């Protein structure tokens, strides 16, 4: 039993108090993170869990990690998450009713099973060695010790990680950077084009979605005065997604014909 193996390494009471307060809180927060509707709330809860973990690190003689956890993770990474959440829409929330049939009960069973099994297994695990503690390892200071490892034993990994960072930067560039390939026409250009164009039909500007339609929806093209649908009235994104509803049933001419 791991407990016996670690018996000699019992920690001081303050850490126990800390653990028993923050540990359950972290787990509960994690559960809450699953339950809340709004993504932002999840993010805040996650940030809280991370801070908890940072405290745990510090409690476990990993002061450097604790700080880095707060700075890098909670500070930088979670901010990034929040940024993106804002981009996507802070108010966005998802309905918690499950759409994939049967997944919810399976997930609950899986959660109980997986968690239970893990806890049970850890309960049964023993470590062949004695509990050591980091007093020796951290003798020269945690940061120094870590630095010693990082820059000698793990220097290769350390160097290689830089490639990862560049990849990330490059990836973000590729996917997010929207450089101008062709000069966008200015408003003046457009206006000129409208009136100097071959037809004055569009001089009045584009029709709004569903303006003349019998069906008031964004995915149905508006009807031009002559009754034909205006493809220009539909968002190009919708078209690309194939979400455009066929406008024929809504055409005036078609309906008139039906009545006759």
């Amino acid at each position: 039993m791991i407990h016996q193996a670690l018996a000699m390494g019992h920690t001081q009471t303050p850490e126990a108090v800390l653990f028993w307060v923050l540990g359950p809180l972290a787990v509960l927060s994690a559960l809450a993170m699953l339950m809340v509707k709004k993504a932002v709330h999840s993010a805040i809860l996650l940030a809280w869990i991370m801070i908890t973990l940072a405290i745990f690190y510090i409690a476990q003689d990993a002061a450097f990690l604790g700080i880095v956890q707060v700075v890098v993770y909670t500070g930088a990474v979670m901010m990034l998450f929040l940024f993106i959440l804002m981009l996507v829409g802070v108010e966005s929330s998802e309905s918690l009713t499950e759409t994939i049939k049967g997944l919810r009960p399976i997930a609950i069973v899986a959660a109980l099973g997986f968690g239970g099994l893990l806890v049970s297994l850890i309960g049964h695990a023993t470590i062949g060695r004695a509990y050591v503690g980091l007093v020796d390892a951290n003798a020269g200071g945690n940061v120094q010790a870590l630095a010693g490892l990082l820059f000698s034993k793990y220097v290769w990994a350390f160097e290689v990680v830089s490639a990862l960072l560049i990849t990330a930067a490059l990836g973000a560039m590729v996917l997010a950077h929207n450089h101008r390939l062709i000069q966008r026409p200015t408003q003046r250009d457009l206006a000129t084009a409208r009136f100097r164009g071959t037809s004055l039909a569009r001089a009045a500007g584009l029709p709004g979605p569903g303006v003349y339609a019998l069906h008031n929806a964004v995915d149905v093209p508006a009807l031009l005065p002559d009754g034909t649908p205006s493809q220009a009235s539909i968002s190009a994104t919708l078209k690309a997604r194939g979400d455009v509803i066929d406008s024929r049933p809504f055409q005036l001419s078609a309906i008139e014909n039906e009545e006759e």
Partner: protein
Amino acid sequence: MTSNSLVYLIALPLFGAAVLLLSGRRSDRWGHIFGTLMSAGSFAVGVSLFLKMLGNPTGERALTQKLFSWISVGSFQVDAGLLADQLSICFVLLITGVGTLIHVYSIAYMSHDLDRRRFFAYLNFFIAAMLLLVLGDSYLNLYVGWEGVGLASYLLIGFWNQKPTYATAAKKAFVANRVGDMGLSLAIMIAFATLGTVSFQGVKEHASQASTGSLTAIGIMLLVAATGKSAQFPLQAWLGDAMAGPTPVSALIHAATMVTAGVYLITRSNFIFDLAPTAQLAVAIIGAITLLFGAIIGMAKDDIKKALAASTMSQIGYMVLGAGLGPAGYAFAIMHLLTHGFFKAGMFLGAGSVMHGMNDEVNMRRYGGLRKFMPITFATFGLGYLAIIGVPPFAGFYSKDKIIEVAFNAGGVKGIALGTAALLGAMITAFYMTRVVILTFAGSKRWDDKAHPHESPFLMWAPMVLLALGSVASGFFFTHGNSLRNWLAPVVEATPSHEGELLSPAVVSILALVLVAIGVGYAIIKYLLNEVPQVAPADVTVFTKAARKDLLQDNFNEAVFMRPGQSLTRGLQVADTKLIDGAVHGIARLAIGSGNLLRKTQTGFVRSYAMWILAGAIALVATIWVVTL
């Protein structure tokens, strides 16, 4: 003694057949002459060999010729070797002699047929095969000739195969023969397995060392072979249909030579049958049954060729009976075979002559009074008739009465039963043969005016005359001083059993003659003194109806073999597609089906994919949990 000329016996007609077949229409003009010459050449060789044999002392008469090693695998050694001993040479002379006559006859008979050349090719081929049959020095060589004549018979029966029934008849003959052949091959296998050899010489030498059981098995199988080829009960059904072939064929193959091969086989295998009494008895019983069976059918037939065919069946029954009586009967069986060869061939040629003159009409009820129009035919036919019913001193009298006599003297109940059957057969023979003669040549004319009966040309009647001479004289010739018996003695060890003689030759002759007279008389009353209707009367006894239908032999075969066979074939076809192939397709469908089913697990939702991973993880952890606890 070896001889280098034996092979020419076979080679000449074989060469003829090859030339005629390969040259095609180019030889149409001279093909028939060429074929006849080849046959005649073979006859000449046969005669010279016969003379050579005569010149040798009794023990050294057998001639052999080894051509090459045919099949040689392990201990299974078969040479392509020929053996002309006293038994074979009788057949050689009969085959080539009668064969040549029939070639001559056919020149005229087939003169209007466009395919006459092909006909002669087949005839030549038949002669070659038949000679191989009787000259082969081992069972396997014999087998080659044996199936060869079967093929020739098939080709000739189906010579006019554009007529579907004729083609069917040919097929039927071949298949029935094959059943017999199966017996022969089994016999050879058993012989090899038991005796380690299949040559006549080897089997003869070692037969005494084999168990009776094996010998009986061989004997029975040989009998099966004989029944197939010689149209014996129960494989007799094909012979009647075989009359579909041109009449010379019926004369040569289905009367004089091929059908007697069974008798040859049994006689040749005397060394086996003599050591296997059960098999020998079976032979005799089959012979007795067939001789009555054929005779009974013969009584009801209106088709002249079929009547003669039934008669042939019956007469071969006599021969088989004779051969089944062991050493006492072999010689007489062979004698009857030879005499029968003459008179039956003669009668068939006569029938052909009649048909030739009657626009190929075969129904005797449409003949009548033809003796005025065809005097030569009538005379030769009549002589054959007298021979077959056994009127002394014609040939049949000598041969048939001897068989009846030996049958009676076979001893015990067996002797009485067989003898009685043979005697009864003689009476029936007399009846139906008289019926044939009366219906054809006597009485009033029953043909319609379109027919212009006339005598056949010289080429046709000359062979008939020669054969008629044979039917008159051969019996006397063979029995004079037991000449044939002594001649054959080295081969078949004729030891007449006079111990416990039941009936003396004289008594048998008298009994036979009386019964023959009764038969003749009844026929005269029935057909000469009474009006013969043109159409066979329908109000006849069940017995007659059955006889007309060949004693229901075809119905029997149909019900017992053909129909179940057809059902089996159909059933197996269904089983093949539905069960075996179905199972294969089922497996394929299973794979495709499960593929389609499992494909649905790929829902497109990333969360369900994650669930798969998680499930895998849980399974792994659960396994660890189970293992470690």
